[in-house]
């Protein structure tokens, strides 16, 4: 059985398992956690594209999430348009703001860029708090409409229950993953990584780095906006907290622990930390305190200190050790 056939079968098996999951485990709480993990994984994948593959330190990512959420909610509530369009619109508007945030990145990097992006997110969060006419301020928007049912053949699919919303999020996650793989494993991806590894070197081989930065900010923001829209129609409540620094920090913690700069890392980090977080919540009664975020902090520090490359890095290291590969990169070694 050739490598490619094995690969294909593996992918089919995974997707099949994902498709029947809600039929196998029907518990609503569990599926709720899984849906949120999926939404978070779109956030982590989009942040990873920007920070991991392009080297742009964006600490305002929650802003794109919030913009997508608010846009989608408002479009559905105030314009009466189908939430599906709102979802897409949220991504597009978020993408536009991503484009705007790309401009500071042309002149700034490192901590300067980081603070500017935080400032950007904070300003938007304050706008959400204070523009009460539009956003209802700190109360937030509630009663956000559900995604409208779709008819396929004779079936009517509704999206109220977690087990059904799961499929929307799954589709979005798979689509995002597909795009990310294609973006990163291509001429585009190699150009982004060149930009990350040495900006001057990249310019010397003809890469118009400004254009690339604007492009990747826009793309990253678009996907984060989609995640926001998905959140809006699931939780059905968005507030300025949706754009808080803590959302960004959660995203980056998950990405770092999963593995920055890898394709699987972000999803792994999002899923693992979401599950871990919920498991710890059940232990809260036992410990009499909420140690989840404390653990996040410790894990993040330990990961950077000892597990550089995140969990994916650790797996790759083990794989290399046991199969005797040289110190080369795996996974992408077989380019068509």
């Amino acid at each position, binding site marked *: 059985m050739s490598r490619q056939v094995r690969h294909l079968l593996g992918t089919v098996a995974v997707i099949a398992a994902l498709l029947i999951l809600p039929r196998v485990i029907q518990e609503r709480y569990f599926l709720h956690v899984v849906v949120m993990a999926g939404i978070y994984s779109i956030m982590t994948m989009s942040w990873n594209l920007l920070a991991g593959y392009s080297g742009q330190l964006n600490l305002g990512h929650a802003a794109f999430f919030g913009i997508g959420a608010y846009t989608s909610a408002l479009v559905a509530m105030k314009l009466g348009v189908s939430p599906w369009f709102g979802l897409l619109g949220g991504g597009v508007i978020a993408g536009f703001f991503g484009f705007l945030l790309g401009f*500071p990145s042309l002149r700034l990097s490192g901590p300067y860029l980081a603070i500017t992006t935080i*400032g950007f997110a904070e*300003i938007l969060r304050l706008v959400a708090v204070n523009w009460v006419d539009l956003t209802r301020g700190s109360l937030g928007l509630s009663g956000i409409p559900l995604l409208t049912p779709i008819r396929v053949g004779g079936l009517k699919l509704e999206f109220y229950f977690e087990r059904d919303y799961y499929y929307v999020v799954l589709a979005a996650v798979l689509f995002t993953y597909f795009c990310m793989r294609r973006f990163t494993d291509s001429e585009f991806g190699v150009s982004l990584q060149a930009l990350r590894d040495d900006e001057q070197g990249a310019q010397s081989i003809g890469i118009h780095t400004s254009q690339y930065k604007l492009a990747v900010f826009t793309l990253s923001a678009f996907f984060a906006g989609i995640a926001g829209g998905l959140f809006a129609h699931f939780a059905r409540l968005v507030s300025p907290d949706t754009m808080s620094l803590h959302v960004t*920090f959660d995203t980056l913690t998950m990405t770092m622990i999963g593995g920055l700069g890898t394709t699987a890392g972000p999803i792994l980090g999002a899923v693992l930390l979401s599950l871990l977080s919920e498991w710890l919540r059940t232990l809260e009664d036992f410990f009499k305190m909420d140690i989840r975020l*404390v653990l996040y902090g410790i894990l993040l*520090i330990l990961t*950077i200190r000892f597990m550089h490359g995140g969990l994916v890095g650790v797996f790759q290291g083990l794989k290399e050790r046991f199969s005797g590969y040289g110190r080369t990169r795996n996974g992408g070694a077989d380019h068509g």
Partner: protein
Amino acid sequence: MESLFLQQTLNGLIIGSIYSLIAIGLTMIFGVMKISNFAHGDFAMVGAYTAVFLMAWLPGWMGWVGSVIAAAAVVGILGIVTERLIFRPLLGRWTDIDIIMVSIGLFILLENLAQLFFGATPQMISDPFRGATLGVGGVSTSMLRLFCLGFSCTAIAALQIFLNRSKLGIAIRATSQNRFAAQLMGVDINLIYTLTFWVGAALAGVGGVLYGTTFAVHPLMGAMPTLKAFVVTILGGMGNLRGAIFGGFILGVAESLGGNYLAMEYQHAIGFFIIISVLLLRPRGLFGTREGT
């Protein structure tokens, strides 16, 4: 009107002096070790909580002075520990992004440990002056705040003397400007790193006590001072001490006047507006130079 302007300016100077104090530590650490410490505000938070506990036990004058000393000591030790265990091993091996990330991890950790141990309810540091105020020609302020202003300025002045006159202080400045040359001159770099972190953290701790006397003390209070300190640091040029001092006062006054005359709700965003404009025009900050200071 006139006295409102003066009043707000005074308020701005007072809060600005606290910003300066906290920011100085941040900029020193960046200047010497090239570390952007996102947990810096949490150092202030720990200092504030030290004061809360000490004042509960020993209220009044002595308690306040004791709190400041205790905060400097406690946070100073915290600084040394984090420098040794977390930051030093990463220097030179990992990228800037990693160092920022690990400091974010520290930020999350400290914030939530505080929440765990101290609870989420805001606390106050009791006022040793018991609310006494002082008024001069249309402006007035509480004795406590005046004292904070005086204290910050004294601390800043003391730091300046230390950095300019003492051997260790000069060594710190030398390392900040050119690490390599300083080593060649016989400076023990590891000692300087630890010392810088100790001083920087202690200053933040003290600043935290002052900050806590003005605002409430709660576990999540660290985010604001962190961001404000970064704004000030960037405004003044990262690594630039004088810039941090001026920047702190500038930010304090800008927030006070801007909040009062423009929009109260966006008061905290004023700093960001300022630095975004500054960075786009002068990426090195108002006082920053081309390469370090």
